[in-house]
């Protein structure tokens, strides 16, 4: 009897061991990585394409935290060495801030096998470009004619249907700078934008938080706003009447980059994630409707409805010197919120 029971125990043990082994080795994910992501179009696009691609290619689970660039930088700084996520996705302004404040790990491009397909000027010792964003005017073509430029937003029929947002996002900042320029201001002088906004404020349809703007447009609360091409594409896919207009003074374009957060414990998976994002497969999927991301991977052709035919055309778009804008920006943010208050 003892022998039998021993045998039974051994059998159970080995069965259990087999089961444990089968769970442990091939099926178990290699781990996970948490990435900050812009709310809205980026969040949806990455959920649709990057999450499954990363799982397939590297067996890594991707968790995402929707935050605008400025919020990401402040959140990491607030966490003081215990980063709430592993990868930043940043626009040029917050990118400089994050590097200056020492919130980025040095970036080792050799960990990104797909880097060969990304233009060299988009890679540096701090990160890599993942997409180009183009900012302009979104409007409802069934209710409004095509706006020609920024100044049109301050005239009827546009102004009473206009939705605005402040300086806390890159698209808001560059739009307000371009508005200021049209009325005699410059990259460092947004005074004219404030003056003009003050004049029309009682007539403006909506003043909202940046994340609220697509919802306000969808609900018909406003019919014209400044935003980037991805948000337009995502709303259009949902059946919203929306079209994108490039202002006559040119549309701002900027590179969006990814960076490792200082103190990340998932550096290897973070590199796998970034490599997946810039891979030809994912870049092509993201460049298709409804997302219409402008790809940085040169193996991916730029689609017919993209605002540019090739990445070289970026030179024809409006660019900004963020080292000059950054020191002024926090005052602009506060001033906007104060002056737009009822």
């Amino acid at each position, binding site marked *: 009897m003892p022998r039998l029971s021993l045998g039974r125990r051994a059998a159970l043990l080995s069965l259990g061991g087999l089961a444990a082994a089968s769970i442990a080795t091939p099926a178990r994910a290699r781990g996970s990585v948490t990435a900050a992501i812009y709310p809205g179009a980026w969040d949806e696009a990455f959920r649709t394409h990057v999450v499954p691609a990363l799982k397939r290619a590297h067996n890594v689970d991707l968790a995402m935290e929707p935050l605008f660039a400025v919020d990401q930088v402040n959140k990491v700084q607030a966490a003081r060495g215990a980063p709430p996520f592993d990868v930043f996705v940043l626009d040029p302004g917050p990118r400089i801030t994050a590097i200056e404040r020492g919130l980025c790990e040095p970036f080792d491009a050799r960990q990104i096998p797909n880097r060969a397909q990304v233009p060299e000027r988009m890679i540096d010792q701090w990160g890599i470009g993942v997409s180009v964003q183009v900012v302009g005017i979104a409007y409802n073509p069934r209710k409004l004619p095509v706006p020609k430029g920024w100044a049109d937003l301050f005239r009827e029929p546009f102004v009473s249907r206009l939705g605005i947002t402040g300086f806390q996002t890159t698209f808001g900042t560059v739009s307000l700078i371009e508005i200021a320029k049209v009325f005699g201001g410059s990259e460092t002088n947004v005074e004219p934008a404030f003056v003009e906004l003050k004049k029309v404020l009682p007539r403006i349809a*909506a003043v909202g938080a940046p994340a609220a703007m697509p*919802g306000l447009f969808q609900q018909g609360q406003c019919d014209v706003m400044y935003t980037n091409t991805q948000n337009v594409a995502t709303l259009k896919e949902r059946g919203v009447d929306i079209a994108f207009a490039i202002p006559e003074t040119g549309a701002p374009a900027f590179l969006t980059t990814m960076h490792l957060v200082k103190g990340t414990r998932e550096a290897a998976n973070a590199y796998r994630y970034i490599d997946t994002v810039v891979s030809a497969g994912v870049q092509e999927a993201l460049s298709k409707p409804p997302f219409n991301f402008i790809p940085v991977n040169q193996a991916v052709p730029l689609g017919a409805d993209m605002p540019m035919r090739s990445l070289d055309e970026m030179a024809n778009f409006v660019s900004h010197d963020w080292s000059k804008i950054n020191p002024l920006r*926090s005052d602009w943010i*506060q001033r906007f919120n104060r002056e*737009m208050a009822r």
Partner: protein
Amino acid sequence: MSIAVAAPVAAGAAPLRRDIGPWALTLPLGAAYLAFFVAPLLMLLAVSFYADERMTTLGLRQWERFLGDPFHWKVVADTLLLGAKTVAATVLLGLPLALVWRTAPPFWQRMLLFIVVLPLLTSVVVRTFAWIVILGREGVVNALVLGLGLASEPLRLLQTELGLVIALTQIEMPLLMLPLLAVISRIDPNVIDASASLGASPWRTLFTVILPLSLPGISAGCLLVFASSTTAFISQSVIGGGRLVYLPALVWQQAMVVSDWPFAATAAVMLMVSVMAVIAVIALVGRVAAGRIGG
């Protein structure tokens, strides 16, 4: 506060350390409160006394900045006023419902209670976005108003204080109704019958008997509604929009967008102090009323 919980004291059983026993049971919660509520609160207070954003030198600069600027006083006033308006609207709508509930048969009492509690069972985000759909320019209310020919232009409800108060009234209603119903259900029906048999009209009975007896419940409910609506950050920012600035939005903007912690801490302390001051007044009114009834 006026929500007193009658602690059942076991009269017969008198163990040796009877005095310490119940207190020892509160130790875990007490310790948690000390570590995770009192300590952070003191830290918040301390941060507000840093003079610069980098938090290197101490000083009263943030307080001077806050108190010396009429804009911030207006934000404080608007926040308290929003709370007052929400309290007024919930009481005006909730009180008649509570009176109906008092006389309703048990089945309808249960149904009414369920309907009253319903808003608590949905997430705040869902509730808030539902109100966008209802109040929007092309929303349910405007479709009705335009369809009935009551107005030629869509009404502006979203991103106005009126719209925000309407939404908050629905969102905060359960916080008024639950304490109010608890108190109103305990009113002795004989007192009301006595009032009627002594010749008082129903209105007089309402104002001299029922309302004074339900005051403790009303004040407890007002207290909760006021505290909750003045700090309802999501509803305020999503339904109110960018042109209505209240203290919670100011705190968030300073802490998370501008990254000025000392000033954010100052605004947060101001929010707490001003809301607590009003709550103290409400609680006092409730206690005075309860005291007068008690004898």
